[in-house]
């Protein structure tokens, strides 16, 4: 009896792991199942407030067309297939991360501020190319030479915000959702002097 029970349990365990585990492993963590739609309209905030907010996402994941992260300093969905929103991984992409970090509103004609919960799964209406063109009532293009922290450098397929300008080697530390393998983080970059990139500013900061 006991041997039969043990043999049956082992077979069941193996089959259970194979049948359920294989597709679950292939389709990753479904991180976004735990996300929410929490946001608050808010009075204008300062650049420093916005940088504090963005900092929470550093060391979290990158997800193309994604928008939520949990602030635990870990990419909870590493190695997802790229350019596929159905992988439902953690993190924003570059433009979605900028949208949330700039406390923007989804209504493109409304330039005022909105707090997006870290775990709110929202991308916003703008692509990197839209930001580069200064699209939306809250955004304008500026000369790269006149940018300051929490302004951004945008190319046609990528955007990153200035976290700390002018390092000793005269780079800028940029906070950005970089790529699936990179995740989201702060890295020294040379976007400022690269002609592919333009300066972009969110308007109406409180300071």
């Amino acid at each position, binding site marked *: 009896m006991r041997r039969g*029970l043990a043999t049956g349990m082992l077979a069941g365990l193996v089959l259970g792991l194979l049948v359920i585990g294989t597709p679950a492993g292939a389709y990753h963590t479904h991180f976004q199942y735990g996300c929410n739609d929490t946001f608050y309209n808010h009075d204008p905030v300062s650049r420093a407030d916005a940088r504090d907010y963005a900092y929470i996402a550093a*060391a979290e994941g990158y997800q193309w067309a994604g928008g939520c992260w949990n602030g635990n300093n870990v990419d909870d969905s590493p190695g997802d297939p790229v350019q596929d929103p159905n992988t439902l991984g953690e993190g924003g992409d570059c433009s979605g991360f900028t949208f949330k970090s700039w406390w923007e509103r989804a209504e493109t004609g409304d330039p005022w501020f909105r707090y997006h919960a870290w775990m709110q799964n929202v991308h916003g209406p703008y692509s990197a190319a839209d930001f580069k063109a200064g699209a939306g009532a809250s955004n304008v293009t500026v000369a790269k030479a006149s940018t300051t922290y929490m302004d951004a450098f945008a190319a046609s397929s990528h955007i990153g915000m200035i976290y700390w300008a002018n390092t000793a080697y005269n780079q800028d530390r940029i906070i950005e959702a970089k790529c699936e393998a990179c995740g989201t983080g702060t890295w020294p970059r*040379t976007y*400022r002097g690269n002609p592919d990139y333009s300066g972009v500013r969110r308007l109406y900061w409180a300071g």
Partner: protein
Amino acid sequence: MRKKWRWPLAGFVLGGLVGATVLTVNVVGASSPERADVRAGGFGEILHTPVLLARAGQPVELSYDVVCGALKDEPTSHCAPSGSVYVRPAGGSTFSRMPLEREADGLLSAVVPATDARAGFDYYVAIDNRRGRTAILPEAGAAAPQHVWLLQDWATVDVGAARFGRSRTPSSVVRGFAWGRGDAAIGLDSGREQSRIGPSAFDVAPDGSVVVLDQVNHRLVVLRRGAEAEHLPIDFSGGEGDLAVGGDGTIYVLDSSARPVLRAFTAAGAPIAAGRLAESTADMVRMGPSGPLVHSYPSEMWLPTGAARPPVAPGRQLASAQSARTVRGGLGVVVHASPSEVKLALVRGDRVEHAWMLRGETRFGEVQLAEPYGNGMVVVVRLWNEKHAEFRVLRLAPAGLVQSFDLTPAEWAESGSLSRFRLHGSTLYQLRSDPSGISIAEFEIGGTT
């Protein structure tokens, strides 16, 4: 028959349920938002660009900003940090405390009075974010502070204006690769709403072979003259990194993932060791006389990671951090650049051997390369305006400029931010990219190395 199968069947069902439960708990746990909020509860980060080089006889302002760690996921105003800078004359043993003052622009600053002391001074900062957390930068504090060299003499070099579009053509091209995954290709990671990332870095080995970090394809590509490219698979977890080859052929790969790691490989690609870096961000690995040095943030100091196995532990990296990059002959290279001025120095301990001040009519970008050359330096610096950019190559002697020429940036794909150039002997190498692929180009510098 029925009785015979009853217990095995019960076991089978039970086992299946156990397996499914284990998987469900693991998957949900991995994606749960309820996991520990490490960053959210932390200090945040002190932001500071080290002064490094200052004119003797003038006061030196030390400026800081603070990123405040959030307490919870709700709108929170910026914290109100306060703190002090601790300063001592170089060679001294006692630090003096100077309270930080809040400036109109929100920065915290302290001014170190003018001194003509030739040896400069050391400093570190301690800041309280007024949310119950304090932090020190550099992290080792008095054990490994920042250093400022005071410049008594320097050569001023007027680099003039940029000459966009008038670039030198390469002396030769080591090799070119099309984008792709095969043996004749090099990896490109690109797509909508992300960076366009090519190979991060390369270096030239003592035997003249070129090693390329093809991190997109998780491999090194070794290029020897007259031979087929050799591919060495490696572990690499981040998106970008850097690479340096030691005098014994050991290949050091900086993996700039969320937690940077330095990995060492034999010349044949066999893994030797891997060690975590003490700081959260790093952009360069370069060879020092005693092993690899990694330039990391937020301190912007050079951390020794050790040539031996096991690598130097993070605590010892911080305690041994240096403001200058140590190079051959007991010299150190120090760089401090801004849009209007580039300061460069070769130092020996606290003493400045030679210093240069670059000025120009066009805005300076990043310093891509600064290496000792003869009794001077070779420097590669970006010049740019809103629509154009070029790299200016400068050969500096103690008295000033000896030679200069311009190079096209050729940066269609992104590399490591300061990994586009390497100097080997009298040859400057450039990693170039365009929509068709990459090439490693050579430029002869001339003069005496």
